[in-house]
């Protein structure tokens, strides 16, 4: 589904991403972990063609993301508030995102009903622009907007960071559900090792731009990761 070849990116002589080879198969649920500055967000941005890589390429369904725009049809993502259009109400934003994929309003409305729990009554019909929402609620809007697009590849950068515990649990269930039938490829980064091992069947551990561990999730994974991070300096 996604193939990365010889990918490097540096700033001022410091390598922030260096991935010689990586293959992600259809339906895999990837968890991306690593300390601050390990290169997770930069990797996401390169995968979304927001940053130009120094060398190498990212292929999405065999097409280079930097030269073709086809990946936009099957990829949706939420990295940070920079993805949200802050002067819209959440409804307007969802409708807008829907319109890009030719999804009608009625359909969006019925989809949103499914997430009523997730929003816990704080998002829809509140008469607020996105810029007036709290960080956590903005995050919810971004995550749901990416789910509404019915992607084949879903990228989420630290979706658990700003949201409350109940929502974290609901989000985990949502991710598990969409990955359950092995049709959607998800890449989720997180600092919360518990969450990320729970929703992923494969963990990529990044350090200084390189993927130093590539683990199939099993019952020992959490302990293994905790051991790694507790000795990290």
């Amino acid at each position, binding site marked *: 589904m996604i193939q990365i070849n010889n990918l490097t990116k540096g700033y001022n002589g410091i390598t922030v991403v260096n991935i010689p080879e990586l293959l992600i198969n259809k339906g895999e649920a990837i968890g991306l972990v690593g300390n601050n500055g390990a290169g997770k967000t930069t990797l996401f941005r390169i995968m979304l063609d927001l940053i130009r890589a120094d060398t190498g390429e990212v292929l999405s369904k065999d097409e280079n993301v930097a030269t073709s725009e086809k990946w936009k049809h099957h990829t949706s993502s939420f990295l940070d508030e920079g993805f949200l259009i802050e002067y819209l*109400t959440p409804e307007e934003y969802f409708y807008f995102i829907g319109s890009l994929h030719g999804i009608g309003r009625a359909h969006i409305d019925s989809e949103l009903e499914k997430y009523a729990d997730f929003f816990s009554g704080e998002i829809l019909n509140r008469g607020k622009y996105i810029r007036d929402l709290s960080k956590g609620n903005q995050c919810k809007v971004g995550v749901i907007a990416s789910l509404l697009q019915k992607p084949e590849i879903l990228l989420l950068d630290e979706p658990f960071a700003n949201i409350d515990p109940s929502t974290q649990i609901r989000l985990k269930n949502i991710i598990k559900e969409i990955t359950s039938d092995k049709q959607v490829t998800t890449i989720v980064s997180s600092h919360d090792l518990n969450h990320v091992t729970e929703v992923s069947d494969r963990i990529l551990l990044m350090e200084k731009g390189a993927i130093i561990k590539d683990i199939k999730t099993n019952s020992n994974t959490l302990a293994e990761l905790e051991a790694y991070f507790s000795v990290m300096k």
Partner: protein
Amino acid sequence: MNRAFLQHNWLAFWRSKNTGRSMAVSIVTGLGLLYLFANLFVASLFLDKVLEKVFPSRDAIESFNSLLLYYFLIDLLSRFQLQELPTLRVKPYLNLPIKRNKIINYLSLTSLWSGFTLSPFLLTVPFLIKVLVFDDEASGFFPMLTSIIGLMIFNHFFSLWLKRKINMNAWFMVGFLLAIAIIILADIYLDAISISTVSRSIFNAILKYPYLAIFPVLTGGLMYFLHYRFLKNNLYLEELRKDNAKERSTTDITFLRGFGIAGELAALEIKLILRNKRPKSTLIMSMAFMLYGLLFYTRPEIDQTMMIFAGLFMTGIFIINYGQFMFSWQASHFDGILANKISAEDFFKSKFLLFTLFSTVTLLLTTPYVYFGWKILLAHAMLYLWNIGISSLIVLSFANWNYKYIDLSKGSSFNWQGVGASQFIVGFPLFMLPLIVYGLSYWAFNQVVAMLVIGFFGVIMILSRPFWLKKLVSLFNGKRYAIAEGFRNR
């Protein structure tokens, strides 16, 4: 503590990411201010001569006294327009053991660092010295000076207070403007009141009984206190959003739906313009430009170059004013635009759509000028075609070199954020090109043909737009990483 605040302000200026730019801006505005001050100063030196010429029957100081309140009224209005609220970011200090009084006093006192504080003195002190001190009426000088200080302080803190009130409740603005309008109406058109009489009697009395100067000082002090108390009660709200309580509705701009995704994007941008302070004030200023025709066309002899210029401005003002900052308006969600399913082609199509829409509106709004001659309408129509065909293309090409983030929530007057070299350079082709084309074809043929030539070029470019669109897209594809990177640097 004040020293620490000053030092932080100082560091904030020097360590800001835009230090170089703000330096340049400070120097340019500083020179402009100096020039303005010099003018005021010279005007003040000759004020007595001017006043004696205009009101020969009265003493210069008498006329001066009768005009002083008008001056402060104008001062208040221009402060209302231009003065900025002082910006110490108070948030980081609120949770520290610092007395609120200190923070507020610092905010209040440093706000006096502004050209408005100096201008009334430059305009009055040389005059007063000349007519009072040199003419052996020196006893009147200090009372007058004191009252002017008092009124200046009053105006200063009144306008700050009013602006803060307006931030919380827009009705204050309506009330203020209404009050001013009523005063002007009653004074100038209805003769119901006479500010000049009031002004004269007040300041004559102060000249006669110097101790009366205490009253202007008292009003100034009272206003300072009012502003102080307001800040004290509302300091928590400072820097937070004031308009949270207002209900936002989900609106829909349906007529653009027919244009597909480009239409959706254009509708989105219309919302951007209407819902954010800076683009909204840009739009309002553009609309105010529609009145410029009254300046040009009411003259007995209409200069034809002026006609071209006015037409270019009035039908293209939105393209010029709004377009010069593209794509900075969308800086805060530019990543989202790139990562979502939006093709660069649709992105540019939406811009053309938006420009065409607004130019059409301005063309329609300016048709009444046909009253001053049919050639005006012709000029406007031809320049309308030029603007949507060529000006829009110029602006959109230059937008690819604009990497500067803009904060949409700040006002637009004297706001230099997002201003860079590209805004200055884009002016040349934008203004010179149509004048050159017009001049050449006027020289070769005549006025009407020259106008038609302008329109002709516009139509050619509109018809060949698919070709230019491709060029724009490939230009954009080379530049988009740099643009997105620049917008991430706030």
